[in-house]
């Protein structure tokens, strides 16, 4: 795959498509994950700023949205400036966000009464431009709504993360519907890193990149956010993957 991206024809085609999309005037900046395996799969080597991204939980995570919230918090923690977090349910526990690197002083919560006003607040936050990231917990996200959000994000350069969270497991099929978001992720929990003694190690996630504009989908097994919001590759995979790059990094670190 790496070679096919490098071919000049593909590059040229990609540029032409971008010009058609109208995004060529502004060079898009990205927020890299700092994990080579993920960044390699994303266009420009990271999560696009000024764009809408979607995160959902897998399995029971579609209802509780715990892992997806931490994944979003990790991304928001690595941006600059304040973060707006729009919710309808008040079960988010701020100490956990702090442990994922998103300090309490940076987060402003908006508690809206219904889905419609969450989307309105989400759009308002994205349009403002002074915020580092805007996160919203929504169940339904129509094509029209997501396009509005995407345009608002493009105009201001803030990163928008929609945490898709449903009331019931059966409603999660909604995640298959098309939206205008640039990437779409699904985060499911995996058994934690084994420890030599009894206890629970660092949490692990199965992170699927389901959709990625101008990129291919992929899936990763990752260790959850550390206190700075950084994800990591499990150490035994780094050893076993046989990639020189990562082995060298590990030896150096």
């Amino acid at each position, binding site marked *: 795959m790496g070679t096919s991206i490098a071919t000049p024809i593909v590059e040229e085609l990609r540029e032409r498509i971008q010009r058609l999309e109208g995004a060529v005037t502004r060079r898009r900046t990205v927020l890299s994950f700092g994990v080579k395996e993920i960044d390699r799969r994303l266009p420009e080597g990271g999560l696009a700023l000024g764009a809408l991204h979607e995160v959902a939980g897998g399995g029971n995570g579609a209802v509780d949205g715990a892992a997806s919230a*931490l994944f979003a918090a990790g991304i928001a923690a690595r941006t600059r400036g304040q973060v707006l977090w729009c919710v309808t349910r008040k079960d988010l526990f701020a100490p956990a966000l702090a442990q994922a690197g998103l300090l309490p*002083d940076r987060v402003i919560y908006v508690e809206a009464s219904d889905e419609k006003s969450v989307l309105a607040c989400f759009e308002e936050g994205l349009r403002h431009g002074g915020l580092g990231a805007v996160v919203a917990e929504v169940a339904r996200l129509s094509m029209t709504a997501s396009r509005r959000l995407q345009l608002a994000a493009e105009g201001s350069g803030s990163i928008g993360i929609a945490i898709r969270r449903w009331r019931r497991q059966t409603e999660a099929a909604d995640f298959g519907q098309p939206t205008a978001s640039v990437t779409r992720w699904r985060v499911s929990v995996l058994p*934690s890193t084994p420890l030599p003694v009894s206890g629970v190690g660092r949490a692990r996630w199965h992170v699927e990149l389901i959709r990625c504009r101008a990129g291919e989908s992929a899936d990763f097994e990752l260790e959850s956010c550390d206190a700075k919001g950084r994800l990591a590759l499990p150490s035994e995979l780094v050893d076993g993957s046989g990639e020189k790059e990562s082995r060298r990094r590990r030896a150096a670190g």
Partner: protein
Amino acid sequence: MVLAADAAALRAGLRVGMAATKAQALVSNLIVMDAEPEADAQALDRLAIWALQRYAPIVAADPPEGLVIDTTGASHLHGGEKAMVAGMVERLAASGIVARAALADSWGGAHAIARYLARPSIVIAPGETATTILELPIAALRLPGEMVESLHVLGFERIGELAAKPRAPLTLRFGPELGRRLDQALGRIAEPINPVRSPDLIEVRRGFAEPIGAPETIARYTAKLVVQLCEALEAKGLGARRLDLLFHRVDNRIEAIRIGTALPVRDVKRLTRLLCDKIETVAPGFGIEIITLAATLAEPLAPKQTISSLTEEPEADVSDLLDTLANRVGEKQLYRIAPVASDVPERSVQRIAPLAPAAGAGWPDHWPRPARLLANPEPIETVALLPDNPPVTFTWRGVRRRVKRADGPERVFGEWWKRDAELIAVRDYFQVEDDAGERFWIFRAGDGEDAATGSQRWFMHGIFG
């Protein structure tokens, strides 16, 4: 004559309307003060201005002892109608004024219900005012005393009896006043409120030769008024904290928009935006004759030095966004979370204002915390070895899970300085992981040995990501 008596005097047997000499004979060492109707009226006006600054754009004194407030479009700033009315009574009580408040569809209705039903505050659902006041005595109708007397002689006790009778004979006997008051109380005819204005209020107004009604036109003139108001504010070195936009309609009603800001603001664009967001809530009716814009609450706004150093990057200002959101979803719905020094998880967080200074502190980082905390811990069925071990299996919401890995216990002691019941209460928290890798935060109420420390039952409290 006794014109007013406080609670202690009423207990001693004094009644309003009693002769002063008789009162003095009943109670020795009675403190008698001369009535000062003018001072009372002035105090009532001061109270009206206070309510104007704090609660709603249309407030008027309703002598001798009442205030009338049109709360349309202002209650969302105070957390809803019920909270606003209750808060109003509490706040007045804190400053030594015993007040009763009612919120109803019409001035007449609210007047009657506040005096005869409110204990001490009541909110009548929209459309139910008319049925509520039918049960009240006719004295609630704001009629002259002798008219009430003669209605009593005729055998009328309740408003309902009066409303059921044909109107013509009553009007013939008592004049048009009776019918008018009845209609006002039932909300059948409009009763304009002439809003109180303090002399130092910064206000701009604009009259129209031809009434206007289209939202675009209203928005255009609003923008022009904001420019004028900002000039007036600048001359005094003030910034607006609360703005009232009043629309005087041709049918003598007043529609109002009220917006609030977190910090004093004098930015034309920002204030126009906040006001224009709300124009859709205004019903222009047959047209609007006059628009007035007043800065009900203004605070000094001094010029501020911007960052001049070469390396510092300016911190993005989000206060305008917060104002927009606060005016849309309500001020209370917008918050930051700050740590509280408490080991009990649900007490370790508190809401603070979004623009409060940064606390800089966080929570202790010894133990992982769940991303989602259940508002109420849910009981679970467990199989566990007492006293120290985590459960082997547990059943939550009908799903049985086998515990693969677990961490704990993290012991949380009750906060005895808060409640006596927590003197020896204990919770033991465990982080458990099931076969599929889902991680939960569960606790046992009690230390597993001593029954006094808790019920020894297990609860689910949170979900880790």
